C-alpha cells in the first residue's frame, strides 16, 4: 500500500522510480576519445562477439566466425567457420573448443571433447535471442536469453515494451540438459563465471551487473551505469572489461515512462527513427536526437546528447569501474558489443561503427581522476 502511494507521488513529482535522471559519466567513466582516436582498426561489417581461445582471437560477423590476426602493427581477419544463419554469440573454453550460438536458437560446438555437438533449442529453454554464452567448464555452458518474446534483431522493441523476460541458463553438454538459474531479467546480454563458482550477468535495461550464486538470489554488484551494459570479459591482470553498447539519455528515459507514446511511436514511426538507443551514429537528418551534439567556440561540449556512443569500462575484481575508453557523440566507433584484453592490447568490436579496434593500453593513461 505504502509503496503504491509512493509510486503515485513519484509519478506526480517525477522522482524516485519514475525520475528521468541518469548517472553522470565522471570519475572512471570520464569521457575521452581514446577509442575514437585509436590508430589500429580493421573495417568489417557489423562485427559482434569477440573472444579469445587458446591464443587465437575469434569474432562473429553475420553468419561467419572469423579469426583476427595481429602482428607487428598489422591487423587482418580470415573466415574460420560459416553457418546457415546469423551467429549471435560466441564462447571459448580453456581447452580450445568454441561454442557458437545461432539466431535460430541452436548452439554448435567446434573442437574439443564435444566437437560437432549441436544443441537444438529445447522446449521451454533458451529458444530465441541468445545474447551471450560462456563456458563454466569444459562440459557446462552458460547462456543468456535476452528476451523470451523478441528475437535478437528486435532488442529495441523489447526495450520499448519494458521487457523483463530474459533468463540465464546452465546447459550440461554431456547430458544435454538445461535448467534456468535466473529469470525475469531485463535483457541479460553478458555473462562470465567467477572464480568462486558464481556467475556475473549484465542486465542491460536495468543498467547493472548481477552476481548469481548457485541456488542463490541475484545480488547487484554494480548499479547505476550511465549506459546499457553488454558483454563481459576477464582482464589479464585481474578484474574485468565490460562493453557498453549505448548511452542513456534523459529523452529516452522519458519516453520509457510514456507507454502510450511508445505504443504510437512503434506503430507510426519507422524503427530506425524511434527514440531509442542505437548502435550506429547519426546517418539521417530525421534522427530524433543525434543532432543534439553542440559545438561552442570550436569545442564539442561533453553533455551533447546522443543515442549512440562507444564505451568499454575496466572493472576491478569487485566490479568497480577503474577506467574507460570512449568514442563520443562526434565519433563513429559506436555500439561496442564486446571487448577482449590480451597482454597490453584491448580489442573491441564496434558493431555500429563497422570496425574492430585495437588499443595499446600501455599508451593510455593508467589513472583517470
Amino acid at each position, binding site marked *: 500500500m505504502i509503496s503504491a502511494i509512493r509510486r503515485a507521488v513519484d509519478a506526480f513529482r517525477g522522482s524516485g522510480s519514475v*525520475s528521468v*535522471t541518469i*548517472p553522470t559519466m565522471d*570519475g572512471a567513466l570520464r569521457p575521452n576519445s581514446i577509442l575514437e582516436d585509436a590508430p589500429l582498426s580493421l573495417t568489417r561489417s557489423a562485427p559482434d562477439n569477440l573472444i579469445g581461445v587458446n591464443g587465437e582471437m575469434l569474432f562473429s560477423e553475420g553468419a561467419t566466425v572469423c579469426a583476427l590476426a595481429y602482428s607487428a602493427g598489422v591487423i587482418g581477419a580470415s573466415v574460420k567457420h560459416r553457418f546457415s544463419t546469423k551467429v549471435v554469440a560466441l564462447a571459448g573454453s580453456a581447452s580450445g573448443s568454441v561454442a557458437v550460438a545461432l539466431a535460430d536458437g541452436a548452439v554448435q560446438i567446434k573442437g574439443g571433447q564435444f566437437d560437432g555437438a549441436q544443441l537444438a533449442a529445447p522446449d521451454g529453454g533458451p529458444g530465441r535471442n541468445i545474447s551471450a554464452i560462456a563456458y563454466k567448464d569444459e562440459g557446462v555452458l552458460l547462456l543468456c536469453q535476452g528476451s523470451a518474446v523478441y528475437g535478437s534483431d528486435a532488442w529495441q522493441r523489447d526495450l520499448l515494451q519494458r521487457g523483463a523476460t530474459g533468463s540465464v541458463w546452465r546447459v550440461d553438454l554431456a547430458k544435454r540438459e538445461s535448467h534456468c538459474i535466473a529469470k525475469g531479467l531485463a535483457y541479460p546480454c553478458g555473462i562470465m563465471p567467477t572464480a568462486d563458482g558464481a556467475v556475473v550477468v549484465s542486465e542491460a535495461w536495468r543498467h547493472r551487473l548481477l552476481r548469481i550464486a548457485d541456488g542463490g538470489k541475484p545480488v547487484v554488484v554494480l548499479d547505476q551505469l550511465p549506459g546499457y551494459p553488454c558483454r563481459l570479459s576477464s582482464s589479464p591482470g585481474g578484474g574485468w572489461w565490460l562493453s557498453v553498447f549505448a548511452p542513456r539519455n534523459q529523452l529516452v528515459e522519458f519516453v520509457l515512462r510514456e507507454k502510450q507514446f511508445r505504443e504510437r511511436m512503434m506503430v507510426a514511426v519507422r524503427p530506425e527513427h524511434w527514440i531509442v538507443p542505437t548502435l550506429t551514429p547519426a546517418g539521417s537528418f530525421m534522427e530524433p536526437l543525434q543532432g543534439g551534439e553542440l559545438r561552442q*567556440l570550436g569545442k564539442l561540449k561533453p553533455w551533447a546528447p546522443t543515442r549512440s556512443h562507444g564505451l568499454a569500462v575496466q572493472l576491478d575484481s569487485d566490479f*568497480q569501474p577503474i577506467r574507460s575508453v570512449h568514442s563520443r557523440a562526434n565519433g563513429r566507433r559506436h555500439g561496442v558489443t564486446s571487448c577482449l584484453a590480451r597482454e597490453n592490447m584491448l580489442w573491441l568490436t564496434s558493431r555500429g561503427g563497422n570496425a574492430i579496434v585495437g588499443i595499446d593500453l600501455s599508451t593510455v593513461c593508467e589513472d583517470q*581522476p
Partner: protein
Amino acid sequence: MTPLVEMRKVTKEYRGVAAVKDIDFTLMEGEVHGLVGENGAGKSTLTKLLAGVTVATSGTILLQGETVSFSTPAEAVGRGVAMVFQETSLVPSMTVAQNLYLGDERFFNQLRRLYNSAQQFLQTLNFEVDPWAMVSTLGAAKKQMVEIARAVRQNVKVIIFDEPTAALTPEEKGHFFSLVARLKLRGVSVIFISHALEEALAIADRITILRDGQRVRTDDAKNLDRELIIRAMVGRSLTGELYSRNETGAATRSRGRKVLSVQNLSMGKAVRNTSFSIFAGQITGVFGLIGSGRTEAAKIIAGVLKRNFFYGGEILLEGKPIRYRVPRPAILDGIAYVTEDRKVEGYFETMSIAENIQMGNLAVNRKRSVVVRMGEMQELASHWQKALSIRAINGNARVVELSGGNQQKVVIAKSLVQLPKLVIFDEPTRGVDVGAIAEIHHLMHELASQGLAVMMISSYLPEVMNVSDRILICRQGRIVEEFSPNGATEEELMYAAVH
C-alpha cells in the same frame, strides 16, 4: 612631501592586551598602500583606528599634518576617510540604490532619478548590480560591490578596503583593480588589506607587513615578492605548504567507492540539470565563477536548500536516494557542510568555542537528551581545539574574539564532531590567513586519506589545482567538465568555467 595620513606610535589595547603596538604608518597622496599579515596581525584594528571605528589607546594620528581623533565612522567620512568593511554594513531590507544614497536623502526624493543615477554610477564602476534589487537578495560578491560603490560615491580622500576581492570573480576583480587605478589618478589614497598577496603585489605602490600587532616591514612593492612577504608575515617560509602539490609530496589519491551521485539536479535558475559524483578517499575540487550554482548544489545536498518539487533530479548517497527538507537528517546520514559565509551561517559568535562545537554535536544527538554535561562539552572542545590547532586563550573564548582562521577552524570542528562520511567545504580558506590556509589544507588531505569523501568548492585556481585529486568545473548551474589536476592548466580550467 607631507604624508596624507601619518600614524605615530599608535597602540590599541583590549583588556590590557595590545592588538596593535607602537605602529608607525604613513600614507601618501594618490598612493595605494597594501597592508598584509596573518589573521590577528592587527591589520583591521589599525585601519579601524583611522576610520573612527575604534579609538587608539595611545599614539597620534595626523591627517594632512593635523592631529585627528575620530570617535565615529561618520566623523571620519566627514574628514574624507571611508572604510569598506569585510562584513557588509548595508541595510538588507532596502534596495541597492537606497543603500547607495542612504544618508543623502532629500525631503522629496524622485525615485526615478535616484535609480537612474544609481544605475549610471554603478555602470561607471563596471559593476553589474541591479539598483532595484533588494540587498537581502544579493550574494556576497554583489553586496561587496555595493559596499565599494558606496565608499567611492562619498568622494573621500582615503578609502580603506578590507579584503575587497575575497568574494569577487576574476572578472570583477579586474574591474575593481581598474577602479583603484582610476581612484589613484584622481589623487585618492587607498589602503588595501588582502590575504591574496599577488593582488597586493600587483596593485600596491608600497606594502606594510604586520605580525602579532607590530610592523615588521614597509617597503616599495617592487622590492618585495611573495616569498619575502610570507616569510615576514609568519616568520617562516610557507610557500611549499600552501599551493604546491609536489613540494609537499602529496600525490593524487585514487578513487574509493562512489559516495554521492547527483543526477540531473535542478533548482530554479541557479542549478540546472547538473550531474556529478563524489568518491571516497579523494578531494573533489569544484571550480566555477560566483553564481555558477556550486554553493546551491552543495546546499541542496546538505538539506539547506530544496531542489525543484517537480523533476528536481535525484541524489543518491551510497546508492540510496535522499531528499532532505532540513539539514538534520543530512547530518545524521553523514553529510557535513562547511559554509562559505561563516559569519552568518557558520557559528554563534557570542558563544564560546566549546558551546559552538557542542552545537554541532547536538545535531547528531540521537538520544535527544536534554542535559548537556559541562565536563563532556569541555572535553570535546579541548579535543577538537587540539586536533585542529584552534588558537585561543581557552575553550571559553567567544568565537567573535578569534581571528578568521581560528573561526573557520571552529566551524570545521563543529562539522567534524558529527563524524561525517562526506564533508563539503565551501570556500574553506576565504578570509583566512596563510598559516591557517596551510593547516586547513593539511586537514582536508588528512580527511581524504582517512577515507572520507571531501568536496571542496573554491574560486581560487591555485587552491583547486593543488589541493584537489579531481576537478569539476561548474558553469551556469551545471557541472560541465572534469579535469585531472595532473596536466590541467589554469587557462583550461578558466576557459571551461567561462565559455
